């Protein structure tokens, strides 16, 4: 048996359902899968049986056997009981998709030789090697980072992660005396409320603080871009969502309005009627009232959202609150507050360090990087060709311009919402040039959608469908409460069952795919990409291992590859958060992100009366699933500001129904919150026109 196991090792690769982090495991056969803790691969999902499946060695090959699991094991869309599995083939257990490759025994380098040489007790040595080998270590994923200067993505990932040099000799101490901060002679800002990040999360928190009564002078937000939606808007534009296209967001999720009313749907109806465009008004009304059963779900135009947020930013005095900078480190001070070191780029382009001292800090730094597929990253490094392989979040209009003129073959990787939108864009190009062919490559087919209780997610063309990036009940319904009340392990399980890559259930997208498949200009392939090569004619050759015995490997020649696999939010990629976790030994949540309480306070960071809160994608795996959505950021802001109100933090007053109404009336009139009279004429013409209100009547 030992010799059998020596002969056959398998390499399993899969990705985390929720975070998309790649995982790898090399192990000798047999390999068991199940929810039980003693399985080789423990899978935390209600759709995985305690003992679900096993990979065994048989006749020199690998056999996949289902252990009479409730929800089945799938190979190529078929539920199986026992099949031989060729190297490179994929299979699905619950919500997890695996790719199995057979590796020669000598590649099993997981056990360091020095360890094996030690005269350890036999069983102990075995268990140690087991431990080392079976730790499914996440692959070190390739990413594109944002340039600090321009905010754009840098085409090639830097070799070494940028080591930001911290002031005060590296800020080694966990508690820094305030006197030392001043002694450094670097500029110091003192404030009560400090938002680090400066994006939508910071904006939502600031908006709540302002509406709960805090004056703008007591809040500072540090971020790289002056507009709260600056980076988001740029990524939307790059991923082919221009101002007139619609976001994947609900009508009631209004980042500019904490009450969510009037919703974007109502505003669009109102605005269309004002312009005499009754056709659009009827169209929107049909979607708002018919969604999602009778018609597709209504989603707002990105331009309308940006305009509305600009108006609210003006109203709450964001231009007085925002400071240009990039957070580097946070430390507790000896007077029970926090000091945040940040880097500011001055007019001459030099980076200068500064400090901000505050009692309450909010961290919402967003996605630190964009994930790029390893094979594409390697291809880019080898050939320096960043034109033919692009990430969907990069500026890549040259692809569409070339295709419009010359036609060509484009490969899409990834199956999320961005892929759908890129296909729609390519379809628009194809309307004008019929020589465009789209090849969609998936790692594995999706035979069945995720399940939870009686409910199952729909699948069309191997893509799971869902109006938003999480089931709707995660925002405001029973699913939100269930997650909030669950413990760590249960949260991990629920997230695995509810998460996963999905795209919107849009009839127009489905029509495009159906037509393309019928006419042959849209093709779907399954398999793991082995490598990319450049051909003499400047095309990209993709080698794919399919895991099918009759055709183990195929190669596809394409003009362009568009990587639509998405964003990454591993904590290691964010210098400041990694430093904070290291310095204070913070515990992380099951998904390896910041552990926050149900009020979004960072666990382990309180000092004196000071508190640190966090929101956004860095808190995924905690009490809330939808942390990176507009409404999720607002919810996190609401909970943390209410928590601060209960602690009698300065300036905050409880928002009882009457005060809530009067604050809402101020929003309607575009008057700054909690001030008797407006300071600057109050009416913000652009925003009010967006609401269909005549600004002249609003002046006080």
């Amino acid at each position: 048996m030992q010799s059998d196991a020596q002969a056959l090792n398998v390499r399993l690769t899969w990705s985390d359902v929720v975070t998309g982090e790649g995982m790898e495991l090399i192990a000798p056969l047999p390999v068991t899968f199940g929810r039980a803790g003693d399985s080789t691969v423990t899978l935390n999902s209600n759709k995985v049986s305690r003992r679900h499946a096993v990979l065994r060695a048989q006749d020199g090959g690998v056999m996949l056997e289902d252990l009479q699991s409730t929800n089945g094991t799938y190979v190529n869309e078929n539920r199986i009981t026992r099949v031989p599995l060729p190297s490179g083939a994929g299979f699905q257990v619950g919500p997890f998709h695996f790719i199995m490759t057979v590796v020669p025994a000598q590649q099993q380098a997981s056990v360091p030789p020095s360890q094996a040489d030690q005269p350890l007790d036999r069983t102990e040595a075995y268990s140690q090697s087991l431990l080392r080998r079976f730790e499914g270590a996440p692959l070190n994923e390739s990413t594109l980072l944002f340039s600090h200067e321009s905010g754009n993505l840098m085409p090639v990932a830097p070799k070494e992660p940028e080591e930001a040099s911290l002031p005060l000799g590296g800020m080694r101490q966990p508690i820094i005396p305030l006197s030392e901060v001043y002694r450094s002679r670097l500029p110091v800002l003192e404030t009560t409320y400090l938002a680090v990040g400066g994006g939508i999360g910071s904006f939502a928190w600031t908006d709540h603080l302002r509406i709960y009564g805090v004056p703008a002078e007591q809040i500072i937000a540090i971020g790289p871009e002056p507009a709260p939606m600056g980076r988001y808007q740029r990524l939307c534009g790059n991923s082919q969502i221009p101002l007139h296209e619609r976001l994947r967001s609900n009508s009631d999720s209004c980042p500019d309005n904490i009450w969510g009313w009037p919703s974007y749907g109502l505003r669009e109806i109102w605005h269309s009627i004002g312009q005499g465009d009754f056709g659009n008004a009827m169209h929107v009304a049909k979607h708002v009232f018919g969604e999602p059963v009778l018609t597709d779900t209504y989603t707002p135009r990105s331009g309308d959202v940006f305009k509305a947020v600009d108006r609210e930013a003006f109203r709450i005095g964001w231009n007085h609150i925002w400071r240009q900078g990039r957070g580097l480190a946070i430390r507790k001070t000896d007077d029970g507050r926090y000091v945040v070191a940040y880097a500011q780029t001055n007019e001459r382009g030099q980076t200068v360090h500064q400090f901000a001292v505050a009692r309450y800090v909010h961290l919402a730094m967003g996605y630190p990087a964009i994930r790029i597929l390893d094979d594409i990253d390697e291809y880019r490094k080898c050939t320096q060709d960043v034109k033919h392989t692009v990430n969907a979040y990069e500026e890549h209009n040259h692809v569409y311009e070339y295709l419009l003129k010359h036609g060509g073959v484009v490969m899409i990787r990834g199956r999320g919402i961005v892929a759908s939108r890129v296909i729609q864009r390519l379809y628009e190009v194809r309307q004008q040039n019929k020589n465009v062919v789209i090849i969609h490559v998936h790692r594995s087919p999706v035979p069945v959608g995720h399940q939870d209780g009686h409910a199952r997610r729909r699948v069309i063309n191997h893509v799971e469908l869902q109006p938003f990036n999480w089931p709707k009940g995660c925002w405001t319904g029973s699913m939100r409460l269930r997650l909030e009340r669950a413990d760590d392990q249960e949260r991990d399980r629920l997230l695995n069952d509810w998460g996963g890559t999905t795209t919107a259930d849009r009839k127009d997208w489905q029509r495009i795919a159906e037509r393309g498949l019928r006419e042959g200009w849209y093709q779907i392939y399954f398999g793991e990409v082995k490598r990319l090569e450049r051909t003499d004619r400047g095309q990209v050759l993709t080698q794919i291992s399919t895991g099918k015995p009759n055709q183990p490997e195929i190669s596809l020649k394409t003009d362009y590859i568009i990587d639509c696999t998405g964003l990454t939010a591993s904590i290691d990629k964010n210098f400041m958060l990694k430093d904070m976790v290291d310095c204070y030994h913070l515990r992380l949540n099951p998904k390896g992100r910041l552990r926050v309480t149900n009020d979004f306070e960072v666990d382990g960071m309180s000092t004196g009366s000071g508190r640190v809160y966090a929101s956004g994608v860095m808190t995924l795996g905690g009490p809330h699933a939808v942390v990176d959505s507009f409404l999720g950021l607002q919810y996190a802001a609401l909970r943390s500001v209410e928590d601060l109100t209960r602690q009698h933090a300065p300036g905050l007053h409880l928002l009882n129904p009457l005060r809530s109404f009067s604050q809402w009336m101020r929003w309607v009139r575009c008057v700054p919150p909690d001030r008797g009279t407006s300071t600057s004429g109050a009416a913000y013409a652009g925003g009010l026109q967006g609401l269909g209100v005549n600004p002249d009547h609003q002046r006080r």
Partner: protein
Amino acid sequence: MTPTLLGRWQIRLFLLGTVGVIISLAVGLILKDFGTPLFVLLYVFLFGILWDLLYQLITSFRWDRDWPTSFQVAAGIVEGALVFLLLLTGKMPFVPNVPPFLVFLIQYGLIWLTIFVLLQGPMRIFFLNWRYQGGQWLISRKPQPGYSFQQQPVAAPQFAGGNYQQPAAPAPQFAGGNYQQSPPPAFVASNYQQQAAPAPQVIRSSNPDPRQLPGNAAGTPAVQPYVCSCGFASDRAAGKFCPQCGKPKVQQGIT
């Protein structure tokens, strides 16, 4: 808003108890008979409690656990029709005389329409938390299981004089952004470690009392203290406002 069962019941109780009663009283005033409209309202409420159980069951079959507007409209029609049919039988207690269909339609229709409009938005203007809680006003905020709000001492690696470098020797292979310091007992796909770490070598609170830490203030230029009228001391030179209460710093502060 995607309501929970308790949310549905609370919405029903609250809105029928306010809007419903007011409209029913108005109808009663016109009919000069308060009994019939109020008992009709009571039946709508009582049957509604049962209907909500069915609605919640339907919701559980929907992947998104939502309650689309079209369902809401259909439910309103079905509910009203059932109550009126039962009234037509004449066997409902306290309502001996069947109200004319038009009267019932006006009463029920007005109540339903008002509630529908309120639920679509205006409710949130008064109750900010309401929509996030699945329509519940009253909600039990149970403490999170296995979680302590005030930070407990956390197992930390060997801690030597402000050097926070992780000890190199016994550290297991870095797994999935997981900063726990003990080797995981078994691999779990989501890189989540279920079992508690073994007995730590050093216990250090992650929230040390600043007063107990040795200060290193010798030779530092003295910070000019400023004591605000709220009693909070801060640096005079930094900022124009008191960081505690936000009042502007005044010249006559205590030095």
